[in-house]
Every structure is written in C-alpha cells, then in structure tokens.
C-alpha cells in the first residue's frame, strides 16, 4: 500500500484493507441522518406473546423505514431527567408504514423491559432513534438460514414477515429454540419454513433437547443447501450465539457468511 507520488500529484488513495479474512461486511449502507435523530414513538397496542414476552406496537410518523434485521435505540426518561436507553430489534416487516413493532422479554429486575411489562399502556410515549446497523440486515436477496433463541427470534421474524409480505421465493429457513411451546414467541405465525426446537418441555411425541448438529447438518448438505449456499443469521443470548455459530461452522458454513447479533 504505497502512494506513488509524482511531483505535484498523488495517486488516488485506495482504502486500507487488512490482510486477514474479512468479516462479513455490512449488507446495506445506514442512513446516518436517521441514526442521529430521536423521534417520538407513541404506543398504540400491546399484544401478549408468551407469559414473559409481549409485542409493543408504536406509531412513529417520521419513521424512515428499515430492513428486516435492523434494530433501534429506545430511550425512556424519568421526571428528574434520568434516562435509560436500550437496543431493540425491529419485529415488524418494513412495509408497515409509520408503525413499528418491538417484542420485549420481561427481564427479571430489568429497568426498561420492567417498565414496558408493568407500566406501559397505549398512548404512552418513548423516544427512538434508528434504524441502526446494516450488518444484520437482510434485504431479501440471498437465501437466508435463520437461527434464534428466546427473544433472539425477533429480528428473524421481521425477515420471515418480509419474505411473506413480498411473496419472495428466495429460500428461507428458520430454526427457533425455546424452553417449551408456551414460551415460543410468535408460535401461531410460523409456517413450513420453521422448525421449533424445545429444550425443556414439549408436547407428546415431540423431542426435547438442545439445538444440535442434527438440526443444522441437513440444511448445509445435499438438497437442503441452496445453490451458492446460505447467508446465516444467528441471534440470541451470547451463550446461544456461541453454540449455534459453532454448529454452523462445524457443519461447513463459511465463517464469513455467519452474522451474529448478541443480545448481551
């Protein structure tokens, strides 16, 4: 990487690229303007998903739109000016003009999720900025293999909804892990694209156990693998993300085609 300097002129700079294998690049450019501005979001509806998770629908009239997989920053403010801000993935498909939906787990002792689950009611206002991060976004262009656990299914559901709403025929598969059927978020909305994995409890005849190589391997070999392979999207707690991303790589998924969103 040398700039050849001829008297009075310098060759155009080529950006530095590291000699190491490049981590999956961002899929889309993020609008820096949208990311910088706080907007008021008015809660319009609350839908219970499971005993511990609920979906919160907001009107955000100036929402610039998003791609499935993106998240936002949400801020709540107390009377004395104290604020708390947290990241939340967008659950809704992009075409829901002027409205967005978030799905929050009720985290034990959680400051923000606690407010949502015990206090929030339609008409309440919070602030949001975003959408953020083009990295985990899925524009609907390439075959997508989605693996999520718990509330990690939220950004993946936005992708599934987008796929349906647009009638896309690009292959899409979702593996979703939950402790038991009653804790499976969006349970009524899954179709043929989805396999649910229950780790603790399941109804008669349904196996119980962790997501394993047996779930992943068939999707990465033979007829299960689309020509050109998958973009893999993994989302959930760090422990789950580590486990699922290792399974993928062991089954042959290239590391630079695994995108991970860790909720902490």
């Amino acid at each position, binding site marked *: *990487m040398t700039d050849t300097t001829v008297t009075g002129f310098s060759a155009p*700079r080529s*950006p*530095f690229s*590291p*000699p*190491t*294998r*490049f*981590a*999956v*690049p*961002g899929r889309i*450019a*993020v*609008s*820096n*303007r949208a*990311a*910088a*501005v706080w907007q*008021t979001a008015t809660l319009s509806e609350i839908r219970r998903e499971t005993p511990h998770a609920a979906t919160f629908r907001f009107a955000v009239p100036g929402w610039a739109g998003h791609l499935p997989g993106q998240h936002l*920053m949400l801020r*709540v*403010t*107390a*009377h004395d*000016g*104290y*604020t*708390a*801000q*947290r*990241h939340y993935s967008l659950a809704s498909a992009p075409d829901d003009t002027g409205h967005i939906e978030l799905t929050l787990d009720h985290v034990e002792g959680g*400051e923000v999720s606690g*407010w949502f689950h015990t*206090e*929030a009611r339609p008409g*309440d*206002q*919070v*602030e949001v*900025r975003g959408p*953020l*991060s*083009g*990295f985990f976004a899925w524009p609907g262009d390439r075959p997508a293999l989605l693996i999520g656990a718990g509330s990690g299914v939220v950004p993946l559901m936005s992708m599934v909804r987008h796929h349906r709403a647009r009638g896309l025929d690009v292959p899409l598969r979702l593996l979703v892990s939950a402790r038991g059927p009653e804790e499976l978020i969006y349970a009524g909305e899954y179709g043929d694209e989805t396999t649910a994995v229950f780790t603790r409890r399941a109804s008669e005849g349904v196996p119980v156990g962790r997501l394993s190589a047996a779930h992943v391997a068939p999707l990465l070999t033979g007829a299960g693998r689309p020509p050109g392979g998958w973009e893999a999207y993994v989302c959930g707690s*760090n422990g789950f993300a*580590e486990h699922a*991303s*290792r399974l*993928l*790589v062991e089954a042959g998924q290239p*590391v*630079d085609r*695994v*995108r*991970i969103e*860790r909720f*902490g």
Partner: protein
Amino acid sequence: MNVTRGFAGRPRVHNPGLPPGQYDAGDDWPVLSAEVTPDLTPADWAFRIDGLVAEPRTWDWDGARALPGSVYEGDIHCVTSWSKFGVRFGGVSLDAFLEVVRPEASATHAVAYSHTGYTTNLPLGDLTGGRAWIAWEYDGKPLAAEHGGPARLLVPHLYFWKSAKWIAGIHLLDHDEPGFWEQNGYHSRGNPWEEQRYSGD
C-alpha cells in the same frame, strides 16, 4: 424533555465515573461481537504494525510478551449502554510497540484490525501516551476467547467497539478511514463522555 409516564428508573446513586446514558453492569460482562469467535491459540497469534512507520514489524506471541508489561486498572464503557468499573487488564502499552516501529511524522490515524477481519479506526493520538494496550490478561487470568483472547486492543477511554478483539495489526495512515461499525453508522471517534455513539452525535 420527554418524560415517559410511569418511568422512575432504578434508585440511583450519583456515580461521577458513569458517562451519560450508561449504567453499571456490575459483575456482568456482556459479549458483543458480530462474528464467529475464532479458534486462535497464542501460537497462531501475531501482531503487526505497518503503514506510515519507519520500520514495519510483526511480533509473535513470545516476542510481544517479552516487551515490558503494563497494567490497566479502571473502567470500560460499551456503546450498548453498560459500563464496567474497576476492571484490570494486563498486557503491554501500545507505546512500547510504537517505539520499535517509529511512526512517520505524517501518520495521524490508524486502522486496527483483528484476525477475523474486523476493523476500527482511531486517531493516532488515542493510541499513544499510555492510553492504549495490547492486553492478554483479565483479572490475572488469560483473556477468554469471547472477550478477544488470546489478545485484544484496549483503548478504555473510548467506547469499547474501538478495542478490537483478536487484534492482528495496526496500520498507520495520514487520514481517517472508517472501520466496520463506523461504516455501519457509528461515530468515528466514540468518546463516551461526549456520548459519541452514532455518526452525527
């Protein structure tokens, strides 16, 4: 001010060490990386400094460990809002590495990159003067892989996405060049005390 009805927040003690918009994560140390954790052993690890320097140089594990040791004791701050107080990292001050390669006078910025290909940009001034480390120990133990072990960059006065995990090298430039998150809408510098989270802050 847009007060949120019914939101009081946790009872809080004023903590002058907490930058605006942050909370104390206590014993938690959340893991936030976008890529698969690499299987990288000390034997595979190498660290290079090149670009606008008099003598580009690559250190292997033993070579880097042979430099004079240095410890950071203090706080770290993540853009996702958690801060962690009183952490202790062991490694080598980046100054010790830079002394060997001798940056050119024209070098103003750096791109730090990791063995996974992750990149992040920094003004050179944020990497010198005893404010940046190559760290391989946390709390007296080898740094865990999910936190960037065997070795990571540590720039604790900036948001933690600047502290590239699995550090592989630093390339010095005479201009600023956005890295991975900076191309994804994050701020170019990332000073937690000024809440430089996203581009435009």
